[in-house]
């Protein structure tokens, strides 16, 4: 679901190099915040802030003609922050019929004894279906530029359930379990979602940039220092992404 139209001030910074063009949804916000902090210029097209630029969502998402032209005219790497919430929608909270799955890259991760096991390939299909509008948008953006497109992986999950609980609008879940999904499940869903998106990127000539390694703890969860709201990361994380992006364009 797209949010209602809102326009926020565009991020402007004055540096010599061409501002990095970033396009996407809410995960772009941390980079915008970091840009404002650091003065590293970016040109941000945040659909979450202005969804009027997106047409024909979700079947055949496209951009308005002026925005299409802006992308065609841009002569640098385009950074995608499109989507990135499918794993959260599927498994931030516990489903009333608890489920779990075996992650092929880490089959030793525990299975919740109270949960039914779903084949990972079926979960992969579920995530692919959930991400479908965003993947279409990525493919569309790819078609608008002859330059490199780099998709930035969404941030790792937060391990602190108490911290997460405070961010959940529980009133939206009448009659459902009111619990944060188990940590291993949230981690597995994030990894699998990233694989789904990375595979899509590989098929469509889009580079995939993994999360900054210094942002995770020994188990792969987002360090508390980068926490924002349980779904998104904060400006410090955004600053590290900016460094990644600058390296990618160097």
């Amino acid at each position: 679901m797209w949010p209602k139209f809102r326009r926020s001030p565009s991020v402007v910074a004055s540096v010599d190099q061409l501002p990095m063009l970033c396009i996407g949804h809410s995960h772009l916000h941390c980079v915008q915040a970091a840009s404002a902090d650091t003065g590293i210029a970016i040109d941000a097209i945040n659909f979450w802030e202005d969804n009027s630029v997106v047409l024909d969502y979700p079947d055949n998402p496209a951009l308005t003609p002026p925005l299409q032209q802006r992308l065609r005219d841009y002569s640098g790497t385009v950074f995608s922050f499109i989507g990135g919430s499918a794993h959260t929608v599927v498994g931030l909270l516990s489903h009333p019929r608890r489920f779990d799955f075996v992650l092929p890259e880490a089959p030793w991760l525990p299975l919740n004894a109270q949960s039914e096991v779903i084949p990972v390939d079926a979960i992969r299909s579920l995530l692919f279906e959930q991400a479908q509008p965003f993947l279409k948008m990525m493919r569309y953006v790819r078609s608008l530029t002859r330059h490199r497109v780099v998709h930035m992986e969404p941030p790792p999950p937060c391990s602190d359930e108490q911290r997460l609980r405070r961010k959940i609008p529980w009133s939206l879940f009448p009659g459902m379990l009111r619990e944060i999904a188990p940590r291993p499940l949230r981690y597995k869903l994030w990894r699998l979602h990233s694989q789904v998106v990375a595979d899509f990127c590989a098929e469509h000539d889009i580079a995939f940039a993994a999360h900054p390694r210094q942002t995770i703890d020994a188990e792969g969860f987002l360090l508390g220092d980068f926490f924002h709201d349980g779904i998104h990361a904060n400006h410090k994380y955004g600053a590290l992404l900016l460094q990644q992006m600058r390296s990618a364009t160097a």
Partner: protein
Amino acid sequence: MSHPYSDIPGYRRWRSGVAETPPADLDPVVAFPFRISPQDRIAAAGSCFAQHVARHLRLHGFQFLDTEPAHPLLSEETARKFGYGFFSARFGNIYTSRQLLQLLRRAYGRFQPIDDVWQEANRYFDPFRPSVQPNGFATREEYAADRQQHFAAVRCMFEQADVFVFTLGLTECWVSLEDAAVYPMCPGTVAGKFDPRRHAFLNLTVEDVVADLSAFLVELRTANPRVKMVLTVSPVPLAATAVDRHVWVSTTASKAVLRVAAERLAGTPGVAYFPAYEIITSPSNRASYFAEDLRSIREEGVGHVMGLFFRHACAQPGKAIADTAATAQDGFLAYMQDAVDIICDESRLDP
């Protein structure tokens, strides 16, 4: 002059029972030994024809017992692709009486086939349900966890069913020479590798099928004394025969064996035979219930069978309900999307 045929009812004469009866009115059931109530939980298993039985029971509001349903997060398309909803558990087609008996024993830990898993290029296939998981399981761990869960669902099905409908499909099968484990498909066809030193052909006889089903009933009733059983014979012909003779000859031989075995068992308490095979293959419909491939059964034929099943075997005829998915998705994803949207909105307000 009086003789044994002089006062028989019309259904016992070919002319009145078949030749002069409109095809759609053919009713060879006549009488059924018990009635299934709307409260009865009905389990279904067997060859591919049993899928139709399961679907119609569900569509007509009966308590179709599905102990291994797809998770509601999965779409209908994904659920079907992964073998959910076709039968009462995710066991795929059970073609033979031997396979059914061994499934029960495996579910209760009384039989553990030596041929435990087929590994192909880092994918893992269940030799005894190779088709339920497209391209096999991703890891050995997933395979083990899924099978443990599957066996729990199978036990639950056997123990909770009030009526167990089983469609006998084949007599031809392939067995492991190591321990006589029966495969649903010949190794090497869907998955696995055929090895003549390890795999052998077996064509079940009437005595085999009767012995299998008799043993199955005894063991089933140990777990569930009240369960009744309905036997049908699949009218779907063999796709291929392992015997060097015409496939049609093998088909009639197989179906005859199954039909005779069902006839013998139908006389035992709590076991009934339902003539789905006869309804579909009757000359009265001039093979019109078979699709273009002369194997698949058209929906009109399935409807004829199930209409008579509801009329004769059920206390109430059942009421057609909307053609809903076997596994309806719940509203969880919509709720979650709203929640994520709100968090995203707040994120923007709280940089």
